[in-house]
């Protein structure tokens, strides 16, 4: 079977239609988890089956696709999903955030500001923010329905009681337009402020859990907190060792077994762009042209 035997973007038109209906409902009710008939995808659950289905339903032949995994364009998950859509939809792909019309992401929001007309698709493992607090799904649905979100603060209370501060570092719960409490997928809480008032459409797909939810452009999203322990976006207290950026989210990379480590931007496109513009960090930028010559 060749790639041409697949329908455009792998899924058949009726399935895409069903997913689009769920997306539209999600956009109409920001933060509400819309059930949808998630399909088996040619990848294991946990690898982004929800995000892939949402992307497939949104793609048009004119789109330019960017796929990132933990901010990076060149990790396994990102590479394989990008190849998947190149094969099944023959769309243009890019690594530059500004050039992309659809960005599928796992666990990060790009550093570069998104613009109107872009769609950011998140891969979501667990869409239910109350999952580990209330074991009954019937009850969590009821709690969403009746806006009973006291339990979410119990989680934050427990954090402070145990660690002295809110220690939830990723999947930090947010409230959307003063109504639904939402799990923003496991993005670091550093990215939480970027959720709010974003010009791009943000779509969340959870394949195994069969839920889609969405944030339309310019939606007000507030991270939950206490009056005396306000929300704080946090990152490693370093600059990027390659590009010197002080305001981007950093990955810690262990470089040897003697405690050596470096901090680099998790957004590879952002870092590369800064290096190309002449910014240099503590460990300098590798000069690719010179390396190739040697």
């Amino acid at each position, binding site marked *: 079977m060749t790639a041409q035997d697949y329908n455009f973007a792998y899924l058949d038109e009726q399935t895409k239609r069903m997913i689009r209906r769920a997306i539209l409902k999600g956009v109409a009710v920001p933060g509400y988890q819309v059930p949808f008939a998630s399909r088996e995808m040619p990848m294991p659950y946990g690898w982004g089956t929800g995000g892939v289905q949402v992307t497939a339903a949104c793609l048009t032949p004119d789109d330019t696709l960017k796929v990132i995994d933990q901010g990076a364009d060149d990790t396994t998950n990102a590479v394989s999903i990008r190849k998947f859509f190149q094969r099944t939809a023959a769309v243009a792909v890019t690594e530059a955030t500004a050039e992309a019309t659809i960005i599928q992401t796992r666990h990060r929001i790009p550093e570069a500001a998104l613009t109107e007309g872009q769609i950011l698709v998140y891969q979501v493992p667990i869409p239910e923010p109350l999952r580990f*607090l209330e074991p009954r799904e019937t009850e969590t649905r009821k709690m969403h329905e*009746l806006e*009973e979100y*006291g*339990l979410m*603060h*119990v989680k934050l*209370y*427990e954090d*402070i*009681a*145990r660690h002295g501060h809110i220690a939830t570092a990723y999947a930090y719960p947010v409230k959307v337009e003063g109504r639904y409490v939402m799990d923003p997928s496991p993005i670091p809480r550093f990215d939480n402020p970027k959720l709010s008032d974003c010009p791009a459409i943000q779509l969340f797909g959870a394949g195994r859990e069969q839920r889609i939810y969405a944030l339309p452009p310019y939606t007000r999203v507030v991270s939950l907190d*206490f*009056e*005396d*322990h306000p929300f704080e976006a946090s990152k490693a207290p370093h600059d990027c060792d390659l590009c010197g950026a002080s305001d981007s989210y950093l990955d810690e990379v262990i470089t040897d077994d003697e405690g050596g480590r470096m901090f680099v931007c998790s957004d590879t496109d952002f870092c590369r762009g800064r290096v190309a513009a002449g910014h240099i960090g503590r460990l300098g930028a590798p000069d690719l042209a010179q390396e190739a010559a040697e």
Partner: protein
Amino acid sequence: MTAFDRKLPSPDRPLFQVQGLSKYYGSRIGCADVSFDLYPGEVLGIVGESGSGKSTLLSCLAGHMAPDTGRVIFDTAEGPRDTVTMGEAERRRLARTDWAYVHQNPRDGLRMGVSAGGNVGERLMAVGARHYGNIRDKANDWLGRVEIAADRIDDRPRAFSGGMQQRLQIARNLVTGPRLVFMDEPTGGLDVSVQARLLDLLRGLVREMGLSAIIVTHDLAVVRLLADRLMVMKGGHVVEQGLTDQVLDDPQHAYTQLLVSSVLQV
């Protein structure tokens, strides 16, 4: 039924009125045609053997189960309202503000994975408290009132003994200052000395806070200590009701006589 005419010092309007409440499980009777009035500050005991419909009645009263017929009227801030016909959102709001429910098994009423302080604070946060320091102070205060040491505030309930868990459950329920407390066998499963301390504590709290309470139990000693009035149930029907001492000392119905005479004397 002179007990029902008893004049209480508190307002003359009943806090809680039950009229003709029935619940059937298919053709079987859960409880049938139960009616009573509960005045502010009053404690009503419901006794009966297993299967007599006590728990069914309590579930219907607390809104956990929908009764087939009858009205359950609570004197809310906006005046008396029928809680059976009110919307679920409103009923659940009532359940976490003006009402409290103490389960027989503390595991049903507590969050076992959440610290003692978090358990007590949950109801506060559910009604909108968003200041960590205040929530913690209040939790500390309540743990003290139910005789749990302050240094146990960050321990999980599973590290507590059965008696402590039950006291924690009571603290968690009373922290928002409810006006009506439903208790389902609050001393069940505890040994007698722990029971005695718990009863002592409950009696103190009920008097101090002016709570109204409905206590379901099969332990006559519990109602003797706590309840002003007593209702005896058998086969889903109320067979006798009146002042606690009156019912226990001068039982009229054959079943009540049997119940009272079955208590072991030490």
